[in-house]
């Protein structure tokens, strides 16, 4: 449609664009520039070329942060997306009333991260925590590890909490998608004598593949944006076992006051995230998933 006056579209777009530019675009550009500087926020800015970047690649904490982030992605793909899919399958079993369960699964998403983090810190606590007390109560005291204090278990522990929060979310997404599958297709399969299980895995799941792919993308990009939970529960500890890129970034910038280095770390992370996004879209279009229009 052609606008009334040629400038109306620009007028309409202006507020959003200006706000967005001030908050996202300009900082993003500034940040890229800042990555080539050495600055503590108050002293003079010194141009240091690629020094910050070379330092980043030698920084064992930074590299560990990536390892942890990818570990976290792997765990959450299982604990959030896969579990969400299974739950979605369960609540869509034919002829069952499952409304109550769906509400229950979704509750944790409402909560502020602080509440979740504090609550689960207690659940995991070695001294007053639910898990260890229960384990000792039934005689499995040996299994009562210091979940958040042991570098070997800390990341998994935090991932489980993440799963607790978001499994319901993915369940809801898949549930909505499953609801839209034409009923006659399911009817046909049931009449053929297939069990609920087979129907689910061999018919329903493939039909919602595009949604599953989006879910995977959300999970991966979400992992990179994760901060709140890690910061409050462990702040990267113990000994950097749960240090992810974002927590380290915040520490470098706001605790060590090393703004140039922090900006460089952010720039590298941006490149990684964008690259992942591009790879994902490339794979998707290459494999040519059948987009079923409901």
């Amino acid at each position, binding site marked *: 449609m052609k606008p009334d006056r040629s400038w109306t579209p620009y007028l309409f777009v202006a507020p959003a*664009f200006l706000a967005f530019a001030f908050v996202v675009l300009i900082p993003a550009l500034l940040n890229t520039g800042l990555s080539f500087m050495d600055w503590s926020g108050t002293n003079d800015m010194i141009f240091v070329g690629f020094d910050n970047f070379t330092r980043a690649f030698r920084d064992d904490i930074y590299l560990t942060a990536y390892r942890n982030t990818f570990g976290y992605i792997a765990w959450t793909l299982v604990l959030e997306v896969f579990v969400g899919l299974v739950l979605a399958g369960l609540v869509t079993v034919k002829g069952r009333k499952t409304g109550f*369960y769906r509400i229950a699964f979704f509750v944790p998403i409402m909560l502020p991260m602080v509440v979740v983090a504090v609550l689960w810190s207690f659940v995991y606590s070695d001294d*007053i925590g639910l898990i260890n007390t229960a384990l000792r109560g039934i005689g499995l005291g040996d299994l009562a590890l210091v979940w958040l204090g042991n570098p070997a278990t800390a990341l998994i522990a935090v991932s489980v909490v993440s799963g*607790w929060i978001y499994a319901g*979310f993915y369940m809801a997404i898949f549930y909505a998608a499953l609801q839209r599958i034409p009923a006659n297709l399911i009817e046909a399969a049931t009449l053929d004598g297939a069990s609920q299980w087979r129907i689910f895995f061999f018919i329903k799941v493939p039909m919602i593949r595009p949604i599953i792919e989006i879910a995977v993308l959300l999970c991966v990009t979400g992992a990179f944006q994760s901060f709140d939970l890690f910061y409050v529960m462990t702040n990267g500890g113990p000994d950097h076992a749960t240090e992810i890129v974002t927590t380290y970034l915040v520490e470098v910038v706001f605790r060590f006051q090393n703004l140039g280095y922090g900006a460089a770390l952010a720039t590298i992370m941006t490149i990684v995230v964008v690259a992942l996004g591009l790879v994902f879209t490339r794979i998707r279009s290459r494999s040519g998933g059948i987009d079923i229009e409901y």
Partner: protein
Amino acid sequence: MMSPRVNSVVFHTVLTVASLFFVLPLVWMVVSSFKTKREIFDSPFSLPTTLDFSVWTSAWERGDLGVYVVNSLITTTASVAGILVFGLLAAYAFSRFRFRFSKWLLLPFALGLLLPVQSYLTAQSRLFDAFYILDTRWALILPYVGLGLSLAVFLLKGYLDSLPHELFEAARIDGAGDFRMLVQIVFPLMRPGLATVATFSILSCWNEFLLAMLYIQDDGLRTIPIGLLAFTGKYSTDYPTLFAALSIITIPMIGIYVIFHRQVINGITEGSVH
């Protein structure tokens, strides 16, 4: 194949156990707030001896929780209003008008969806500092609006794209100007879309943590997430008070969710899938 009766029992048991996993920690938190510190320490699973709500009132007062709630209300309302108004205007323009540079102006919003806020956090904080915005409400409202616009613009544009051509043609023939079309035709039809964006934005703003922590130092301006964090720092070993405060904040939220669960779930899932 198992008989339907056994099947049903097994089915509901499995799902009940699963639900318990999601709900139990919260129940434990509320229950524990009625115990004493020693009771919590010595026997985490026991039930409280009394239902003493005074812990709750003292937590509210000592922690000044009212201030945090008010701040969250103000910040969230202002931000969501901004997102809806600016987002609708922009989406309308992008969707219905052909104008030069429209693709270029739209592209940054796509980038905004992908980028984690930490990518530009450092520079953003310096920028705010230069404009003396830090430690004011604007330090949160502006970023919340900016960040929320990416999703809002795309979501609303999606809804707008699906509106039939003829609707606008007819209005144009009737002599309607661009703005009138927006208000008289688009706005009434966009209610579900706006509701979706609103739900999503309200939840994000209400629970936002990182920026609230870094940009606000004045205790009088703190929003709920950071207020709670400060509270946990101050009373971290006063377990009953701590759990009471967490319960006070959480229970209303869950209550609202349970009542509006259909809208909430729809809003959030729509928002993410597009």
